[in-house]
């Protein structure tokens, strides 16, 4: 799994950090998403999918090529 984040779309609501704080963080100045683990380990995949689901702006996407 590979995570893509579009910081132009992100509105800094922090739902990704709230849901998977070990995978996502927020930029200090703009509050936009920073991906800490662009290729998260399998045990985090469920949390990442949840984060994608709750992100209000659609800034996050994943590609599943193994």
């Amino acid at each position: 799994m590979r995570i893509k984040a579009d910081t132009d779309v992100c509105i800094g609501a922090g739902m990704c950090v709230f849901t998977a704080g070990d995978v996502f963080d927020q930029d200090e100045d703009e509050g936009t998403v920073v991906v800490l683990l662009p290729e998260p380990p399998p045990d985090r995949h469920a949390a990442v999918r949840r984060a994608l689901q709750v992100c209000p702006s659609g800034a996050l996407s994943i590609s599943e090529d193994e």
Partner: protein
Amino acid sequence: MTNAMHEPVTFPVTREHPLDPPQDFARWREDAPLRPMLFADGHVGWLATGYAVSRAVLADPRFSNDVQVTHPPIPQRIRQQTLAKFPGFFLREDPPEHTRFRRLLTGQFTVRRMRLLEPRIEKITNDRLDAMEREGAPVDLVQSFALPIPSLVICELLGVPYSDHDRFQRDSSALLNLDNSIERAREAMESLLDYVRGLVARKRDEPGDDLISGLIATGRLTDVEITGASVLMLVAGHETTANMLALGTYTLLRNPAQLAALRADPSLAESAVEELLRYLTIVHLGPVRTATEDVEIEGQTIRAGQSVTVSLSAANRDPGRFGDPDSLDITRQATGHLSFGHGIHQCLGQQLARIEMRIGYPALLARFPGLRLATPGEEVAMRSNMAIYGVHRLPVAW
């Protein structure tokens, strides 16, 4: 195709049970989660009651949140609409204006920054509990606990002297009371703008370590805009969490099994907060969006210029999204509820609100193991006439 089978409904405001949304919603949601609605000014638009369709509308950039193009869902909202037009009130603007403000503020409300505030919020919470103890039972939980905590926190964050909080607490509730005349509401708004205008001017001369000073320092907003945005945050920071804390406590006291579960295991606080947010949905009258072009949703066409009222309370009780939605279950995974909205306008202060509640409920329950309502539950007056739902007063004893 056409909606001939659905006569336009009006937005229901009367609740049959104080903690449940009006019953019509459930029927309508099952039958047509998006249906024609008659707005207060005679406009025929739409009402969204389903979870999926509500989320779709709120996330779709083809819908505008500009206050100038949305229709008021209920008569009392006409007043609020006319007041929501001032520089810096970015909640009711569209990109790129909205983005310009939001970008300058999001950095101040990140999850990490909010966590840094935790010790401060804990201290504020404990001080309030001490004061309650000194005062002795019964106390009004709204005045002694629910309102001062978020009020102190947002004042600190914005750099507003707390000694002035009485004034905008009065103004902000006058603004949000839907029964007030438009003159009274306008007066309150002027008073708020006046006060904050003075504050911004002072901070321009003597900057502090606070959000307003920080906004001034960016050099990217005018004082008028900073004033508007600060009033928005001040009002939003006052009324929302305060009502969640009070109404949430009331709800727990009326659901003893859930209360006992949270008391026994404070680590449930995080999921309890999410569930209370979902179950109570205190933003119970809106939001409204207007299509900027024809939009096809749920097999219906929303025409350009038509408004959609999204019932967040109905969406959060959609059985298609949350199993057994009408029961309160603090152990469920309620994240994904729409109580903070969805899309680009989703609440900026949500992570702060979460922390205030995650600290507030368990601390209150731990300090007063015998906490109970001091008047019969049915006699507690609900804020049906307010833009934000809740209780007016909550007498408690222990």
